[in-house]
């Protein structure tokens, strides 16, 4: 191929890859950019797939990060429908499925994560789905509607959002959770209880401590989820939402350190100075919490896209951000900031019964994380206080007659 190794090659055309490509051009990067994506679509937003899009409130155009015409205009070579298979670090090239080899001066790995599947009988039946890509969402949407029964295996946020969307489309849903409570991996017990009650009040059934044994079908299509103990939960569609391991193999095979994610520094750079990794696939330092973690969120993808784009173009590193995420279910806006590490107490501010409250995760008088439901002030100010490591008074924080601005004062 090319004799001079100039330009940036981005492996992965998701939210992270699409953003770093656009930022490089915004920041005046003039060398060639090529971006390789396995899906047939230009970079698009995944969050709406379980939310507005699934309910029919957003179309394909609104999902796209940029119009298709943008990539040609910005001189970004978008190579879709192919997969990068091997990175040759010494030669600074990457092989693609189909036989092409592309050179790079700088490589950005943005391969994301994939939905974990369940190695149980019946997992290959039609109507047994995961939700990660637009194609997944199309398949799910086609099976939802009036009278359709959704069984969600795994009570995480994607599953709960799909549940709310299924109900909005006129169907019913049951959530099957292996742990004693939903959201066990990501939220505190108060939030689990709140979301369980909120969904229940709208007709959603929950089964916790539920060990899924197999999926049953008729004529090749799923008809139910069989639990340990012998009970079967009837359904027309089963959505498996049990986590998303990182697509780190291509990096590991190239000798880059992986530890439940590709290990990167605060500039999103791997140990190889020519190779960056960004987004869900990375294990990154969280300076605020003095540890490394794999974050799975758009906010993280964008922050690392900014870090990498700044490093590549010689800009000063962007300010460190407080990680955050959100979820929409029914009329609930859930916003999460920080990480609940090293927490010694949990404090609720507001009224859970009125669905307007925030849960603060505290370490001494510092806020480590905040989970806010229909409470944007608590989210915004909580996020700021987390980032500034500013101590607060627990008594004042718990007192809703004192505004968040006064709490912070």
């Amino acid at each position, binding site marked *: 191929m090319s004799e001079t190794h100039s330009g940036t090659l981005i492996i992965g055309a998701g939210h992270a890859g699409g953003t770093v490509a656009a930022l490089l051009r915004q920041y005046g990067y003039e060398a060639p950019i090529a971006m390789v994506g396995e899906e047939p679509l230009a970079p698009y937003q995944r*969050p*709406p797939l379980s939310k507005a899009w699934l309910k029919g409130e957003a179309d394909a155009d609104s999902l796209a990060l*940029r119009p298709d015409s*943008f990539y040609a205009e910005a001189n970004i070579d978008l190579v879709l429908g192919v997969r990068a298979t091997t990175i040759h670090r010494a030669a600074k090239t990457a092989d693609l499925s189909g036989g092409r080899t592309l050179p790079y001066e700088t490589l950005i790995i943005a391969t994301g994560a994939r939905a974990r599947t369940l190695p149980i009988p019946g997992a290959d039946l039609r109507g047994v789905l995961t939700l990660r890509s637009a194609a997944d969402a199309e398949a799910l949407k086609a099976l939802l509607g009036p009278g359709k029964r959704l069984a969600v295996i795994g009570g995480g946020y994607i599953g709960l959002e799909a549940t709310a969307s299924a109900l909005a489309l006129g169907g019913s849903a049951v959530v099957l959770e292996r742990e004693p409570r939903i959201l066990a991996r990501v939220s505190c017990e108060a939030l689990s209880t709140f979301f369980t009650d909120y969904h229940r009040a709208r007709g959603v059934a929950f089964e916790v401590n539920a060990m899924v044994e197999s999926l049953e079908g008729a004529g090749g299509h799923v008809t139910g989820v069989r639990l340990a103990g012998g009970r079967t939960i009837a359904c027309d569609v089963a959505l498996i939402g049990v986590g998303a391991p990182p697509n780190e193999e291509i990096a590991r095979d190239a000798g880059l350190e992986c530890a439940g994610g590709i290990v990167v520094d605060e500039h999103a750079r791997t140990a190889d100075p020519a190779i960056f990794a960004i987004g869900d696939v990375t294990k990154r330092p969280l300076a605020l919490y003095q540890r490394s973690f794999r974050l799975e969120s758009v906010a993280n993808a964008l922050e690392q896209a900014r870090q990498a784009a700044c490093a590549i173009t010689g800009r000063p590193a962007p300010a460190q951000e407080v990680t*955050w995420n959100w979820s929409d279910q029914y009329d609930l*806006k859930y916003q999460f900031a920080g990480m609940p590490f090293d927490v010694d107490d949990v404090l609720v501010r507001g009224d859970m019964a009125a669905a307007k409250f925030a849960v603060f995760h505290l370490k001494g008088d510092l806020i480590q994380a905040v989970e806010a439901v229909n409470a944007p002030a608590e989210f915004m100010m909580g996020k700021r206080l987390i980032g500034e490591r500013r101590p607060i008074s627990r008594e004042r924080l718990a007192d809703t007659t004192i505004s*968040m601005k006064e709490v912070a004062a």
Partner: protein
Amino acid sequence: MAKVTYVEHSGAEHVIDVKTGLSVMEGAVKHNIPGIDADCGGACACATCHVYVDEAWVAKTGEKSAMEESMLDFAENVEPTSRLSCQIKVTDALDGLIIRMPESQH
């Protein structure tokens, strides 16, 4: 279609034809205009699409929801004309709209 002028904090101007029905934020992001990050993609969840609406256009851009009001309250460099651009839908009536971006998103 409505012509929207986006003015970066640096003063750089971008005049864009934005399709009716899109938000002012979407018009910026889809044309890769710096200064409107819109991390949440328009869910009114992040306040990274904060803009100042030109005085003459404030009334035409409509009312803020309680959620937008609260999010804005905690954004940086807020002014009376501040809006979250993901919450302004582009209509024919907004042809000629001018918005400016705050320093914090520079």
